[in-house]
């Protein structure tokens, strides 16, 4: 284990950063490799959650009484909700036109 835990210490900040990095990289890999468009949207949500964990950890460990990280995290959650709604609406429209959710066949604007 990379986490330097001992029984009486509080959780180090690096543990949260490690977790957020793993979540973000998983999201990036899924974003690149998913064939299903819905899974691409899910990967984006994973990445946003990784960033949120970072913000919340910094807010709790380094920001003291001004918890600006929590405020930022709430704004990120808001934008993520809007993004999910618009993304899924685009996906539905796309599915009606092309009758597929395969990302490899959405190449009308690519070349």
């Amino acid at each position, binding site marked *: 284990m990379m986490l330097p835990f001992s029984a009486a210490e509080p959780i180090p900040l690096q543990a949260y950063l490690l977790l957020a990095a793993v979540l973000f990289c998983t999201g990036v890999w*899924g974003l690149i*490799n998913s064939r299903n468009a819905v899974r691409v*949207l899910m990967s984006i949500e994973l990445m946003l959650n990784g960033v949120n964990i970072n913000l919340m950890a910094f807010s709790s460990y380094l920001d003291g009484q001004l918890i600006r990280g929590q405020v930022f995290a709430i704004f990120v959650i808001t934008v993520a909700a809007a993004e999910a*709604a618009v993304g899924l609406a685009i996906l539905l429209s796309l599915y009606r036109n092309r*009758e597929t959710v395969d990302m490899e066949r959405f190449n009308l604007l690519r070349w």
Partner: protein
Amino acid sequence: MTIASATQQICFLVLSVTLVLGALGVVLLPSIVYSAFLLGGVFLSVAGLYLLLNASFVAAAQVLVYVGAVNVLILFAIMLVNKKETMAAIPGLPLRRVLSGGVCAGLLVLLLRVAFVTPWAVPGPEPVGEEATIRIGEHFFSDYLLPFELASVLLLMAMIGAIVLARRDVFSSDVITGEPADQGLLEKARTPLLIETPAPSPTAGPR
């Protein structure tokens, strides 16, 4: 919320394992429905981590918005587009997966190096603890008032945009010519351009 360190560590470990396994399941499982439910588990684990960080308001917002709205929206989208289709094989797909896995591992190493090498100023100032909700409210109505109001405008725009994109018959007539020009112009019954079939007549030019 102050609980013992050992309890916090146990909770953190359980939540981390759930989070990482759930995230891997989201991107790796072949069934998209399982992925969506695992995504709900990931969101709940993240909410648990926020509770460990003494951020009860953000944890509640996470459960309400992500689990209650985004995940349900994703499930609805899966139900609406859930047609069994066999994706055509692509040459070099395993190589692409391995290469992108390498790139992501490199990104992970970079992030971890930053996280473990940077001398963070811990222990920082005294954390706010239980008063976080009050402080967030004060932030929203004083120095973050403009982003707060802009967020409401953004949500309104997203709602209208989603309705316009997802409905079929928003524009019943063309604005300029008055002809019935709904989104049926793009619908599949009339779109030989959008579906990859060969052109019906040999005189048609190259696409």
